[in-house]
């Protein structure tokens, strides 16, 4: 499991992918942080709330190759005939993408630090907002890993995960219009409204459980997809 994760993390930082994605995201954070700072309140909680949506564009590019490439290059055989079990391989792959995301999180600590240095006010809500941000990243990484297992084409994998994430992001806006059971499901799956709760400074068990179990579900489905393909492929 850790062997797979280590190898993938090294792979990310050997190619320009990780640097470009991290760089772009840090740039976006700075763009959002600047007006907050200028207005004098420098509250990073709001910035975290605003920049969550950009993960929809960053994470699919990060995760698109993670399983699709193995399938395309035939290295899947190596993984599946090794004594490391399939769930462990999938978790290892997930951990690699999540680690790159965590690098973004760690770099973003610089903004609250700036606030502290210039004797601004940091609220305890920031901790909650960060927990929400990390959980959101984990869930999106899992969506990306899942999408990557569906195809051997990286672009298609990226598009699938982008569509899933985007649908989850906007679901609650249309939930009321749709109404009924479907509307209920859309409201339940909406990550935006759940993420908002975190950035409002509320740590609720329900939302933490939602994100964790959603991540686990996505990884479970990934294992099932690969398992199933072993049976039907020719």
């Amino acid at each position, binding site marked *: 499991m*850790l*062997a*797979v994760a*280590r*190898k993938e993390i*090294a*792979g990310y930082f*050997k*190619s320009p992918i990780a640097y470009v994605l991290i760089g772009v995201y840090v740039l976006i954070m700075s763009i959002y942080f600047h007006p907050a700072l200028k207005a004098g309140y420098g509250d990073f909680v709001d910035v975290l709330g605003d920049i969550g949506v950009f993960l929809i564009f960053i994470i699919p590019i990060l995760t698109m190759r993670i399983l699709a490439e193995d399938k395309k*290059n*035939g*290295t*899947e*055989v*190596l*993984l*599946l*005939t*090794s*004594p*490391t*079990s399939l769930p462990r391989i999938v978790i290892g792959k997930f951990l690699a993408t999540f680690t790159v995301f965590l690098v973004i999180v760690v770099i973003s600590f610089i903004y609250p630090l700036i606030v502290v240095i210039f004797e601004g006010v940091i609220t305890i809500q920031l901790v909650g907002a960060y927990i929400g941000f990390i959980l959101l990243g984990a869930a999106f990484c899992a969506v990306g890993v899942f999408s990557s297992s569906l195809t051997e084409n990286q672009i298609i994998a990226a598009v699938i995960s982008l569509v899933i994430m985007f649908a989850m992001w906007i679901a609650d806006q249309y939930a009321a219009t749709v109404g009924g059971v479907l509307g209920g499901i859309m409201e339940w799956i909406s990550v935006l409204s759940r993420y908002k709760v975190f950035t409002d400074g509320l740590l609720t068990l329900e939302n933490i459980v939602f994100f964790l179990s959603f991540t686990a579900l996505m990884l479970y489905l990934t294992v099932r997809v690969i398992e199933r393909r*072993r*049976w*039907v*492929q*020719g």
Partner: protein
Amino acid sequence: MIEIKNLVKHYGQVVAVDDISFKVKEGEILGFLGPNGSGKSTTMNIITGYLPSTSGTVEVAGYDITTHPEEVKKRIGYLPEQPPLYKDMTVTEYLSFVSDLKKAPKSKKKSELSDIMELVGLTDHRKRLIDNLSKGYRQRVGLAQALVGNPKVLILDEPTVGLDPKQIVEIRRVIKGLATDRTIILSTHILPEVSMICERVVIINKGKIVAEDTPDRLSASLSKIAKLNLTVKGDKDKVLKTLGNIPNVRYVTMTTKAEDSVFKYVLETGSDKDIREEIFYKMAEIKAPILEIRPTAATLEDIFISVVSSDGIKHTEEE
């Protein structure tokens, strides 16, 4: 060491492997022959646990692949048809990753990897990116990968494909050397390879075993088939007719036109009787000079066709 019983694999409606059973003893090298699409790679993929079988069992060292996949996978080194290489890694990085993946003991990793690289001749290339290696060297990396973790069973799917003649000789020597304390299943298209390396041969066609024997006995039963290449000057219709009338000639055809009124023919005889003299006199009769007469060694295809058409039929009759 390896026991395969009534193995069946369906891909939807297509039957890729149809009730195959065979055993491989400890320390034995088994040659696995068959044309493309005969189910060779599928069988190997099932033995290594990459694909599940539709029915039947595979046991390696007493462990069943479906109930104890990890115990089996620990004992197998697999070189698939296409070596599973990460091109963005160097040879050492890649083999080190494979070692971790196979849960090989970490303390001995460094010495183990350098031994393996020495054995397959990769030491000078250990710091090179796999992407920059030639096909032959990638094949060596694939073989090295299979050896990591010192598995007692090796499954090698066409290990010498893409290598130059010198490398082929080297790799064959390596494989032969490995066999002292390992069990090996090796698939190939090259017949001399089988007689050089393998102690026993299994030939499969359309998912069924059509022959199983030692290479010597197989070739003995096949030496009956002889092919002659002829180059004859003269009218081609007349030559074809005359050749066709010689007894024991099973089949004759004109292949190419070499020069003006010079044609090349391929001729197949049904018995082990040498008919070259007879051809000489017959051609002399019609005043068509023979410019070249050359027997061809039986290729895998010939042997294969013969096995399918004789032993295969006998086999079904016995049933």
